[in-house]
Every structure is written in C-alpha cells, then in structure tokens.
C-alpha cells in the first residue's frame, strides 16, 4: 500500500460510503450529505449572535451517535457533520457583523469595523461577498497546509519521540496553552490545575477510586460531556443570561439600511484584496497551528497587519475602520485560516488546540476506531491501516466542505442574515435546556445534569474573574493521557524519577515549558478563547 493508495481509499470512503439516496442513478453517500448538513447548520449557528460552532457541535454529538451508532461506518458521517459545522460557523460569523454591527462569533468582531460601515454606505451585499471570498480562501489555504504538514509532523513525532519525550510534550502543550490564553499565566495555570484535578477524581489504578470520598456518585469520575459542555457551553450561557438579566430588555431587531450602488464583486476588487487575504491566511495558519491560540487573536493580528500595510501602500484610499474592503478581507481570511491549521496538533500530536478540536476528539473517542495522534499516520505496506484511511477521509471531507463553501456558501450566508433577529432572551434558555438534554441522553442520570450545572457555575465564575476555561477543558481531555504516558515512561526508564530531564529532547521541552511561563509573566497576554 503506497501513499497514493491510502489517499484514494480515503476519497472513496467519503464518496462511496453508505448511500443516503440516489440522484439520477448516482448514489449520494451519507457522508457527503452530512458534511453539507453540518456546513449549512454551521452557517446558521455562526450567523446567530449568542451561538457558536462548538456549541452546535456539542449538542449534535449525542444525536449523531444515536443516529449512526458506534460502528466504523459512523466515523466519517459524524466527523463530516462536525467539520461542516466548524467551517460553516467560521463563514457565518461575518453575517451579523456586517449587516447589524453584531459579531456572530467573537472572532468576527474586527469584521464589524469595516463591514458595518460598508453596510451603512449601502454596500452590504458586496461586503458579504468580500467576506465570503476571503473566508473561503483562508480556510482552503489552511486546509492545504494541514494536509501537507500533519502527516510529516506525525511521522517525525513517532520517529524521534519516546515515552519520556511524549510526556514532556504533553506538559509543554499544557504550559503553552496556559501561558497564552486568558488574562494572566497565573490564571491559566489555575484553570489547567483544576482541569487536571477534575479528571483525576474517581480514576487511578488502585481498587479504591481516588478523591471520591468513598461515594458512588464520584467513584466513576465526571463524564467528559458534563465537564466539557458545562465549563465551555453552560458557563457561557450563564454569563450571557446574567448580562441579559441585568439589562432587562429584549434584543431589538436592528434595521437594515437601504442598499444602493454596485453590489458585484469584480476581478479588480479581488486583485485589490488578494495581498491582504494572502498575508492574513499565513498569519491565521501559523496562529492556528499553535495549540490554544484562538481565531480571535488571528483576526486581530491579521487586521492590524493589514491596516499597517494599507496605510503605507494606499494612504489615499478608504482606511481600515472606515469601511475598507481590505479590512474585511484581512479579518475574515485570518480567522477562517485558523480552523484547518488547528487540526495540525490534533492529528499529529493528539493535542486539541481549541474548543472545536475538543469536540472532534470527543466524537472520535466516543465512536472508537480512530485515535487522533501520531499513531494514525503509520503507512503500513502489507495491511491496510484503517485509521490512515479515515485521516485521508477527513482531509477529503474538509476539501469537500471547502468546495461547498466556494459554490453555495456565499448565497446561503446572505440568506442567514435573518438569524440575527432571534432574540437572545428566548434563545439562551432554549440552548440551556438543549445542552442539558444532550448531556442526559448521553449519560442517562440526573446526577450528570447536576455535574454539568456545577461545571457551568465553575465556567461562569472563571469568566467573571477573567480566567479562560479552555486550559481547564484541554487539561481535562489530556489529563488521563498525561498520567498514563508518565506511568509508562517511569516504568520504561526503570523507575527514573528524573526521566523528564535526563533525555535531551524531553529536557528541551521542559525548558521550553518553563520559558513560556516565564515569558508570559513579563506582561499579561491578551484574552483569548
């Protein structure tokens, strides 16, 4: 089996999987249909202020698993739907930002700066088209980098990293995430420590489940869904509910200014914005490849870099912040190019870098048969490595979602503008019950709902004190793996307590971990989610 064979099998797995229906005699695979459904849902979710892609991914997961089961055939349709949501939400976030000055997702905030002035100037449709082209370009570029880089990185990891180095790499990733996210590295480390503590409750190798107070309730530990959905989704819903609670007013539907003039996107426009898209796509891809740094920072860096270039090269043109098409392009290309690159650490190292990646890993773990990490990219010649076929299936689905984005994304994006009119006082309580129901149908006990509410309160408090919940969630996901790898490394080195420092690469990773924390101490980093 050569590389080409694996790529072809991955493509076939997507297009020749279980058939949903037949169109003019051609079978349409259920996987293709799920990518499309996820993509359209993602645009709607992204275009709805108060909802976000990870939220939809979290709520869909139990429904998808119930519908498709735990068989190997379930993996690609489920992952395809989630990838579709992830990509659709990236595009959809720009819609309310441009039309109503309200970012649909946090990373679309910078889009409001130039998008809404264009709408007020009667050029909303053109602004949406610009955002779409920029977003689709950034996303596609990022996916190409992912497809080219992840396998090589994974092969390098498998070739050079043994158990001590893998343990040190996990510690480095957690230290990096804690350092770069949130108001301060101190809060990042507290968040990470709490995540590790939570995942260690009720687990361990001894007969007695540790930290359980001897109770049955804690003996099985906290289900992943309760911790992740509680801290990430419920915490955000609680915070948003309180903001509304204090405002005591319904979100007024914004009026759309009358649109006039040329709404077409010409080649001249595309040539004008192309350098900004290219620069931002590179920035977003680099940022996205680093675990923990979100699309909001990518958008900010892409925008500020574009603004400097624009002021220098075209001082006579409309400047950023005043309705410059280049401003929309710089922001949307940057925040969209994060999504593909974010999967580089997931597929090559097994380390989730953002909330969307967390749900992709959860889906893979729930269904089984695919363990994101360096082990996936084993190019076996004699036998077929099904994980590698699935990985190329994932890449195919990402490119398929990009194709959908380029073809129908723009039109659907413009239609999704209506979602901004859904009032938050109705939306948030419904999302709350939806999330709790999703948790219950997965776990089947009221205790799980109470755990989720407890984690939701923790997520709410974290947000209020300026602490990012993402290090908590990533530590919760990686905590078990960290302990297992450390146990194996300790045993493999003959009980060497200093195994993290006696192996050169492991020692280098540990030194880098300390360095990141020390550097972050010098000045508080920007809040990122």
């Amino acid at each position: 089996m050569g590389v080409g064979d694996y790529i072809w099998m991955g493509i076939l797995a997507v297009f020749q999987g279980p058939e949903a229906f037949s169109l003019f005699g051609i079978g349409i695979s259920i996987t293709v249909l799920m990518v499309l459904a996820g993509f359209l849902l993602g645009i709607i979710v992204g275009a709805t202020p108060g909802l976000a892609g990870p939220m939809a991914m979290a709520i869909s997961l139990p429904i998808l698993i119930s519908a498709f089961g735990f068989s190997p055939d379930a993996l690609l349709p489920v992952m395809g739907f989630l990838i579709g949501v992830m990509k659709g939400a990236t595009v959809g976030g720009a819609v309310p930002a441009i039309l109503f000055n309200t970012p649909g997702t946090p990373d679309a905030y910078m889009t409001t700066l130039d998008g809404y002035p264009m709408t007020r100037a009667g050029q909303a449709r053109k602004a949406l088209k610009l955002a779409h082209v920029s977003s689709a370009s950034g996303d596609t570029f990022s996916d190409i980098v992912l497809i080219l880089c992840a396998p090589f990185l994974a092969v390098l990891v498998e070739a050079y990293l043994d158990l001590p180095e893998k343990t040190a790499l996990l510690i480095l990733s957690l230290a990096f995430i804690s350092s770069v996210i949130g108001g301060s590295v101190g809060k990042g480390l507290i968040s990470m420590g709490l995540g590790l503590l939570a995942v260690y409750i009720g687990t361990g190798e001894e007969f007695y489940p540790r930290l359980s107070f001897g109770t049955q309730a804690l003996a099985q530990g906290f289900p992943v869904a309760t911790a992740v959905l509680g801290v990430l989704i419920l915490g955000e819903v609680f915070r948003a509910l309180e903001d509304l609670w204090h405002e005591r007013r319904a979100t007024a539907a914004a009026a759309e200014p009358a649109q006039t003039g040329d709404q077409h996107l010409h080649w001249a426009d595309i040539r004008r914005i192309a350098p900004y898209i290219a620069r931002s796509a590179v920035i977003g891809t680099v940022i996205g490849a680093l675990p923990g740094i979100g699309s909001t920072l990518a958008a900010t860096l892409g925008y500020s870099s574009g603004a400097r270039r624009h002021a220098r090269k075209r001082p006579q043109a409309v400047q950023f912040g005043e309705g410059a098409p280049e401003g929309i392009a710089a922001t949307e290309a940057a925040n969209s190019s994060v999504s593909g690159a974010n999967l580089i650490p997931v597929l090559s190292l097994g380390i989730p870098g953002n909330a969307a990646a967390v749900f992709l890993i959860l889906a893979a773990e729930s269904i089984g048969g695919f363990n994101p990490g360096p082990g996936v990219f084993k190019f076996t010649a004699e036998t077929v490595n099904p994980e590698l076929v699935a990985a190329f299936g994932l890449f195919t689905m990402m490119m398929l979602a990009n194709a959908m984005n380029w073809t129908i994304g723009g039109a659907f994006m413009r239609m999704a503008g209506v979602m901004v009119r859904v009032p938050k006082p109705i939306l948030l309580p419904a999302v709350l019950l939806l999330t709790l129901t999703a948790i219950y149908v997965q776990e089947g006990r009221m205790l799980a709902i109470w755990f989720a509410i407890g984690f939701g309160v923790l997520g709410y408090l974290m947000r209020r004190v300026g602490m990012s919940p993402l290090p908590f969630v990533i530590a919760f996901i990686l905590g078990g793996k960290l302990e297992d790898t450390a146990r194996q490394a300790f045993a493999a080195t003959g009980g060497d307590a200093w195994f993290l420092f006696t192996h050169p690469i492991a020692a280098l990773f540990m030194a880098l971990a300390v360095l990141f924390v020390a550097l972050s101490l010098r000045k508080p980093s920007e809040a990122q989610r």
Partner: protein
Amino acid sequence: MRPPETGSRANLYLALGAIGVALVLALVWVPLDSGSGLIVKVRRQVTIGDALAPTLAAGMIAIGGLLLLFQRGAEGQGGLSRANLAFLLRFLLLCAAGFAIMRWAGPLAVAGANLVSDETLSYRTLRDTAPWKYIGFFLGGTFLIAGMIVQIEGRLSRRAVVIAVLAVAALIALYDLPFDDLLLPPNGDV
C-alpha cells in the same frame, strides 16, 4: 449595588484562594482519599502511585496562585460582585425547582391516576410509554425555560409560556421521536 472586586484586589483574593485550595488538596484531601501514595514499591518494582497526579495538579494550582500574586495589578482581569452571586443563587434555585418538577411530575401523575382508577400503575414500567414519559420533561422543561424568560424580561407573559412549550416540544421531537434508545430526563433515573 456594590461594585465588583476588580483589578488587584480581586486577583489577590483569587490567588490566596487558589493557594489555600492547593494546600488543602495536597496535604489533606489527596493523601487521605487515594488508594496509594505518590510512589508505590511492590517487590522492588517502583511505580507511580494514584496520589502523584492529583498532587501535581494541586502544585499547578499553587504555582498559578503564586504567579497571580505577582500579576495581580494587571488590567482587564474581571471580578465578582454581590449582584453576580445573587444572580447565581436565583438561577440555581430556578434550576433546582425545574429539575424537581422534571423528576417528580411523572410519578405524581401516575399516583394521581392510580387514585381515580382501579389499576395500580407504576411510573417505572411506564417510563418509556407516551404520554407518561413526557410529563416530567414537558412540565419541568417548560417551567425552566419560561422561568428564565420571565426573569430576563421582568414580567410574566403568555408569550414566554408559549415559547417554552414550543421549545420543549421541539426538543422532544429532536431527541425522543426519532430514537428508541434515548431516554428523556428523568426517565433514566426512575
């Protein structure tokens, strides 16, 4: 309304709290509530014990608290006010009431039916049978959603109740109707 504890003061409390929690964890909870110590020696074989990982997690929390002491003057750090805590309390009470209705409305309805009929029904045997299986989720869910809308809008309206009913009906349609293997709350517990 008291202003939130912002900036350095809020961070000072948070840092001290984190250090305190970490100390209790590392010195009391983990040693007393783990099946083995930090390191385990069995027949000359040394392995990592169950207490090591949570102790290191406590260490992370403590280091985070200490670093926060040095960074407590940083801007944009947020804080907690009494109003935040009051919201949380009201919200949790609303959830508790909603979940209590969800948990007990079905069994109470069955008990009521037993009073007026000759049959002796049990909710446990009916928990996967319509309409019994929907009673708790429908009433509890409607109470929860309508209660939150009422709290946000500051008044009870027919619109809030109608929206809550529609939202719960949509959830039933989403999770229960297409899947035989999924149980709506509270039917997995009873």
